[in-house]
């Protein structure tokens, strides 16, 4: 059972609990049957002679029946407690381990997987294992043991009656086997698929509603959602219809032991004349046989739960399958901040086209380089290769002459700050958010960073100032304000190399102006590699690299490039045109 082995890995110190739970559950099953034996003994005693029986003995049996019954309940409770402890541990450890794996991935991993999707797999799949581990696995012992023990009991006590019992047992098991067999499994698969399909359609539908409303289109999404609902309904309905007869027969048979046992008993009595003996045994059989029904029912669900648990754990473990954590060989320290790209090539996994194709450039410490080019030209990819978001396929990237994969991840991160558009703040106080950049920063440093990042004005407007918690009590900062906090954090970190995406998420003019100022402060005296969108802001950088189709097409200063009259010149003209555009009723193009 591969799944069980996998699950055991997550039990951490509670591995022993699960076998314990299974054993206890098995014992409780047996204990739970003992009351029937005591009732049988009581009846024996009562039938022994008319009006004369030992009241003391019957009372003893009564207490024994109670003790074993309650004992069974308690043992089962303990068994389930143990299995729950193990199951909870698995749930929690699965989350932790999955998160640990995910967090060790290179940042490029997160491009292909939305946070919602990863969270769902880490968080929800862990819960799915619960039913199987906590409930069904401990029940398994009873499910197997109970029929075996009662079958033995039945055949040993009176083999003739025992054989009679076999008729409904065999028929009901066969029915169940038929329903759970190929056809049943085929249905289960179909059921899961159409359920999933319906849920996906629902999400797609909701996402499309704004469009549907604005364009009065009920056609697309609603129709396919509607169809998936109806398909599901019809599939399940036809299935339940198909199972109507066998299922009803099953219900009927597992409750009909008396109908076979009694005529049979009468026949046996007719032969032997042993009224007391046969009737006593008959009563025992009537009490014991229904447990078959329960056992068979329980085993029905076991397979399903096992399947779900195994799928959940596979999804969780395969999440990071196609990625490797970054490997570092030497862990050398960076002493110099010159940067060189030597014939760097890189293609995104699953694609043939090189996103970065044989790119070489080198920048001296303290220089500022800008990457420009049409969208899809590879400028973002190039910038993100420097902080090692992804592993390059060919060539080398060096900082101070040391190859990136010989620099420890800690060391690399200490030396690079990256400021991209999608910076996020933590749901904590502003102070904590800023201190994130440098745990040991003094209050003075923090104040300085805030001032440089142009945050003072809006922070002074907040009633709780730096103690304001973000995202709590309705405190939300505008996009521009959030970005400036992130910049303060980066200023506080004071890393010598800065990788920067200059595009400011659309902020109002006021904010944009302040962000610009903050960026200037951040990059002062640093080695800067920036992705540039507004060409006006890079006219004075040390070098502009013009990328096209992943290759370097042109490189030089603003003036040099304009003199070349190439791609950059064209871009510059377009840019000049775009900033002159106005909105008006007459088209001015």
């Amino acid at each position: 059972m591969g799944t069980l082995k996998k699950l055991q890995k997550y039990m951490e110190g509670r591995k022993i609990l699960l076998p314990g739970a299974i054993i206890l559950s098995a014992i409780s099953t047996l204990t739970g049957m003992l009351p029937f034996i005591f009732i049988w003994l009581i009846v024996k005693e009562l039938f022994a002679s008319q009006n004369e029986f030992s009241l003391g003995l019957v009372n003893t049996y009564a207490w024994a029946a109670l003790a074993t019954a309650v004992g069974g309940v308690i043992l089962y409770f303990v068994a389930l407690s143990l299995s729950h402890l193990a199951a909870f541990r698995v749930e929690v450890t699965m989350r932790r381990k999955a998160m640990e794996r995910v967090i060790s991935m290179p940042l490029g991993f997160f491009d292909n997987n939305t946070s919602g999707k990863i969270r769902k797999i880490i968080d929800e799949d862990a819960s799915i294992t619960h039913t199987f581990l906590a409930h069904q696995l401990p029940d398994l012992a009873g499910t197997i043991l109970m029929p075996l023990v009662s079958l033995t009991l039945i055949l040993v006590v009176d083999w003739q009656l025992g054989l009679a019992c076999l008729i409904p047992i065999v028929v009901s098991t066969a029915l169940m086997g038929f329903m759970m067999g190929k056809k049943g499994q085929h249905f289960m698969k179909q059921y899961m698929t159409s359920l999933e399909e319906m849920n996906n359609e629902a999400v797609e539908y909701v996402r499309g509603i704004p469009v549907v409303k604005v364009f009065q289109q009920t056609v697309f999404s609603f129709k396919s959602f509607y169809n998936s609902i109806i398909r599901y309904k019809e599939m399940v309905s036809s299935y339940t219809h198909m199972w109507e007869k066998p299922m009803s027969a099953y219900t009927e048979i597992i409750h009909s032991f008396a109908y076979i046992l009694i005529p049979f008993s009468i026949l046996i009595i007719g032969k032997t004349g042993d009224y007391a003996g046969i009737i006593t045994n008959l009563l025992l059989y009537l009490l014991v046989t229904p447990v078959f029904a329960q056992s068979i029912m329980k085993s029905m669900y076991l397979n399903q739960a096992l399947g779900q648990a195994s799928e959940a754990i596979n999804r969780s473990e395969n999440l990071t399958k196609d990625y490797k954590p970054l490997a570092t060989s030497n862990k050398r320290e960076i002493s110099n901040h010159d940067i060189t790209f030597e014939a760097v090539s890189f293609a995104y996994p699953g694609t043939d086209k090189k996103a970065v194709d044989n790119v070489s450039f080198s920048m001296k410490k303290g220089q500022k380089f800008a990457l420009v080019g049409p969208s899809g030209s590879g400028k973002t990819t190039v910038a993100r290769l420097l902080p090692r978001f992804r592993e390059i396929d060919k060539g080398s990237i060096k900082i101070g002459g040391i190859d990136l994969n010989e620099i420890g991840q800690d060391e690399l991160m200490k030396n690079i700050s990256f400021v991209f558009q999608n910076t996020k703040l933590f749901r904590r106080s502003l102070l904590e958010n800023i201190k994130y950049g440098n745990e040991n920063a003094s209050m003075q440093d923090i104040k300085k960073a805030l001032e440089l990042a142009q945050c003072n004005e809006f922070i002074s407007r907040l009633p709780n100032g730096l103690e304001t918690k973000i995202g709590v009590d309705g405190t939300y900062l505008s996009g521009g304000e959030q970005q400036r906090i992130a910049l303060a954090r980066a200023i506080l970190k004071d890393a010598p190399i800065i990788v920067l995406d200059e595009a400011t998420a659309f902020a109002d003019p006021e904010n944009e102006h302040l962000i610009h100022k903050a960026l200037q402060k951040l990059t002062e005296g640093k080695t800067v590699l920036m992705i540039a969108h507004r060409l006006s802001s890079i006219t004075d950088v040390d070098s502009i690299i013009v990328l096209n189709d992943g290759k370097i097409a042109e490189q030089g200063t603003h003036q040099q490039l304009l003199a070349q009259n190439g791609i950059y010149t064209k871009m510059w003209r377009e840019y000049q045109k775009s900033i002159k555009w106005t909105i008006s009723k007459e088209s001015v193009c």
Partner: protein
Amino acid sequence: MLNYIQRRLALSKKGAKDFVKGTFWTTILNIAIMFTAFYTFIFLKEYIPSIFAPDIAPAKGAGYFALLALALLVVSWIIAVIQYRSTFSTIYDESANRRLNLAEKLRKLPLAFFGEKNLSDLTSTIMADSTDLEHTFSHAVPQLFASIIGVILIAIGMISYNWQLGLALFWVVPVATLILVISKKKQGRGNKNIYEKKREVTQEIQEGLETIQEIKSYNNEAKYMAGLSKKLDDYEKNLIKGELLTGVFVNGAQSVLKLGLATVIIAGASLYAAGKVDLFTYLIFLVLGAKVFDPVNEVFNNLAALFYLDIRINRVREMENLPIQSGTTEFNPTNYNIEFRNVIFSYDNDNQVIQGINFVANQGEVTALVGPSGGGKTTAAKLAARFWDIDSGEILIGGQDISKIDPETLLKHFSVVFQDVTLFNASILDNIRIGRQDATDHQVIEAAKLAQCDEFVSQLHDGYKTIIGENGDTLSGGERQRISIARALLKDAPIILLDEATASLDVENETKIQRGISELIRNKTVLVIAHRMRTVSNADQVVVLKDGKIVESGRPQELRSRDGVFAKMVNRQLAEVI
């Protein structure tokens, strides 16, 4: 009664009826299963005397009992089939209806509702709830009611047959019930704790994933994991506490039920010894006592699921109770002037985002809404298309109050070009055709050309027939924007709501998108949310919103010479660019 069930279980009228029918037949089936007990009793009555007097053979033999068994089998077979039909077959109709209602309901919610992120999460939760309710209603719930009714019926029968033994057996039922009632209260608190801890864990994971760049760039992986571990441990502790509590109560109640068997054996033995009951009666109680509580036990085991039922039902009901927008479908305005009269609006009744604004956006003119972020310009634009309903005041289009017009009818007259574009997993052609369903391929491609889509579409392997993936994942932001402009061009509605940021989202293709927009807005009523001051220098009217109020309005040249908010913003930006 029917109404109560309908409300309590969030069912449709037919669903409630089917539910009652299902429960009824499940009860009947439970009784039919008890036939075997009566059958056994008839046998015992007939044969017990012979135990002590083996010479007197009972009158009824094997043949009689075999025939009786056959008759009972036939009757209960019929009942089993009817029960199966009445519970399993109908429940799927009901849940299909529930899902369809949900779909319809979602469509009628205010448009702005869909800007809120977690809606698709909510949808999948509710879809999952529907599936779970389906299971619970086909299996657990009718069985629950049937078991309760069954036990009550048997208890009444047995107590009236012999009240001493009846009481000796059934006294445990009220006690066990009491234990569960008490436990439900306690469990409520425990469950709430678990729920809250669980949410903290989920939030921590989500936050970790969202801030992964920060965590890694500041080398804080270990610290984050320590925080998460602490939350997970806390969650685990609460889980253990909560489940243990539930377990203690449920098992306590089950143990109490077992007491019934002991008391009936002991009481019966002394009554029998004293000659107050006969052996037959005693035996009946013995056999019954060992089995009668089995269905009740089964219910106890499913109790957690049943308690949880309430949460699911409440969630479904909450969705059903969300306010929807409705109105007349008669809307034939004589012109397309948009007029705001004393409009006040707040998202949550607390903070007024729009505090009494008045302005008119004339047909055939461009009206620009400008101002600092948070000033209310986006909200004001969305209100004009009834994305939300306002708190007080009026918004008129062509003199008609829009709060009385069906939102979809109203939106027929709008083209909306905002930053967030929804695309479907269909071809580019079909995605643009959403603008006007009856447009020919030729018209669609014309619109696409005007919106400057042609260039990137021609690079795709199947051109306009290319399927673009779930929500158009394969396209860049600028390409998506151009598709949305093409849609709007195709629709050719008389009123345009436009977020100007759309034009500059994709800096590389800015001029192309601008060309598309210029085409789109020609001679329409245009309400534009503007960020770049230079862009609006040729607008017919500028409305400056700050803190939900209009602080200035007029022609751009006028405002520039006035040295107010607008002039300041213009100057600041002029300094910025170049």
